[in-house]
Structure formats: structure tokens, C-alpha cells
């Protein structure tokens, strides 16, 4: 499952950060998740709550997800448009020579910690 893989890496990344910054506990974890990253947000927070208890620093943490809108670039008319609304075909020139430039990412923006 895709979500579980990300959860495992997120926990490991935060553990390392905690060690480096000498943090005792991490509270809010703000994640920026691309609209078309394929991450199911409900599944993701459930997986997190299930998994976090295994890590002492993370056991009281809480995931806060922010969405990054997906944007597609059209190579034919060099314009950009909203991916979710129009899909693969450029709404300006109807070309299919398009690709995603933003909206696929998953970034840890900031954490609250002590």
C-alpha cells in the first residue's frame, strides 16, 4: 500500500530530525500534499495514527495536511492550466502534449515540537 510506505519514511525522517534538533516531542506535523499525488488523505492520517505510537517522539503527534493544487503545462501552446479540472487535454489548444509540473509532491512544511 502506497500510504503505508510514505508513513514509514515520514516517521523515519522525523525521528532523524528529532535526534538532530534534540527534540523531546513532536506535536503538529504540517504536510503539503499534491492534489494528484495519489495520497488518500483519510487513509494516510489513519495509517499515521496507527503507526506513530511505535515512535516515542511521535506518539502524540498530529498530521495536518495542506493541499498543493495540480498544474499541467502544455507544450504546444506553452500555457498552464488546472489539472483536476481539465485533465490531460489542454483546454486552450486541445493538444495532448501536456505534462504535470506541480501537484505530485509530498513535503514536510513544518513541525511543532519541544
Amino acid at each position, binding site marked *: 500500500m502506497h500510504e503505508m510506505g510514505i508513513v514509514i*519514511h515520514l516517521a*523515519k*525522517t522525523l525521528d532523524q530530525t528529532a535526534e538532530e534538533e534534540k527534540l523531546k516531542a513532536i506535536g503538529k506535523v504540517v504536510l503539503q500534499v499534491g492534489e494528484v499525488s495519489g495520497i488518500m488523505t483519510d487513509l494516510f492520517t489513519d495509517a499515521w495514527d496507527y503507526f506513530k505510537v511505535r515512535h516515542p517522539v511521535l506518539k502524540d503527534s498530529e498530521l495536518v495536511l495542506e493541499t498543493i493544487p495540480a498544474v499541467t503545462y502544455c507544450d504546444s501552446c506553452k500555457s498552464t492550466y488546472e489539472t483536476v479540472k481539465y485533465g490531460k487535454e489542454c483546454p486552450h489548444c486541445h493538444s495532448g502534449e501536456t*505534462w504535470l509540473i506541480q501537484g505530485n509532491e509530498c513535503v*514536510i512544511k513544518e513541525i511543532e515540537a519541544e
Partner: protein
Amino acid sequence: MKIIKLGLGVTSSNDRDADALRDIMRSKGSLLINLMSSPGSGKTTLLSGVINDMRDLRIAVLEADIESDVDAVKIESLGAKAVQVHTGGMCHMDAGMTTEAVRAIDEECDIMFLENVGNLICPAEYDTGAGLNVMILSVTEGDDKPLKYPLMFEKSDALVISKTDALDYFDFDIDKCTERVRKLNGNIRIFPLSAKTGNGMKPFENWLREKLDEWKTK
């Protein structure tokens, strides 16, 4: 409580593991090559051809499969060392899993191939620690894949366009595909070939030798 700005990718712990594995492989003088593609694109058949043609090199294969071990059995029947890695339902290999698999191979070798899980999305998001990333796209899959799955094309050092013996039956346009791929990745090497007939295998194998030499001397 204080706020700490991070701006880190969620998988950044994986990036560190991957760099550590690259250091280990470099000190051993073996080149790890990550093979990525959809299921059934011809990874095992390509590897079988490479193993047969390059008998002077010591080659090992890490087979990542969610369940079975048929690919590992096939590779071992050719006389190469193979390790089966069960990914436990995971849709990709990460650097930690790859490091464990590499440890399971105790003999020295020149090239170690990782046959990643068949999937065009997730494997591209995780650095495995490989020194080279190679993607396979078979002509049966269509030349529009660079548009649909750009990330894997961006991350790969080479693209093998496989099953070219079947070109007559599919409307796969190699020039169009090449053009689309080059827009995403200007440095990528592209090798159209058929592992079945052997056509086009030589340039790919020569490139592997070149990269192995670079890896060992750098």
C-alpha cells in the same frame, strides 16, 4: 512548543540511506542498476540476454516481487546469483530494503541489477541507492507513456524501448516517443531493442560496460 520549518521531502530519510548504499557499492567496485517498468515489459527477459552475452562479468540480480519467486529461479538457471526480495505488499523498493537485499549477496560482483516492482509511479519516487537507473518501456505499452508518467523518464539514465520485434503489430512511434522523452530529460540514453531476437542488444551492453568502467575508476 516551537515551530520548526523543514521543507523536507517526506522520503528524505530514504535519500540518506540511498547515499550510504551508493558509498558502500562504490567502495566494493560494484555497480547497482535499478530497472523500472510496468509489469511484463520484459525486464527478466532482458536480464537473461545480458547475463548470457556478458559472461565475462560477474552479475547478480535482486528480484523484487510482491509474491512469487519465478523470476529469481529463471535467473539462477542461467548461472547468475539471484536474491528474492519480498516487498510485503509494498509498491516499490526503498533504499533500506535494497541495502538488506544487497547484503544477502555474499559473492563479489561487477554489476548488480535490481528488478524493481512492476509499476511506473512509486518506484520513481524512491531513490534505491542505485548508481544507474534504467527504465524499460515495451512497444506494446504505447508511445504516450512519457506524457502520463513523466517522473520515471526524468529520473532515468537510460530508456530501453523493448520488444521492437513486435513493432509491426503496434502503432508505437519510436521517433515520437524519443522526442517526448527528450523534452523531459535531455541527457537520457535511448536503446530500442528486442531481447527476443537480440537486435539492438549490443549498443545497450556496450553502454553498460562503459558505465561500469566509469563507476570503477571514478
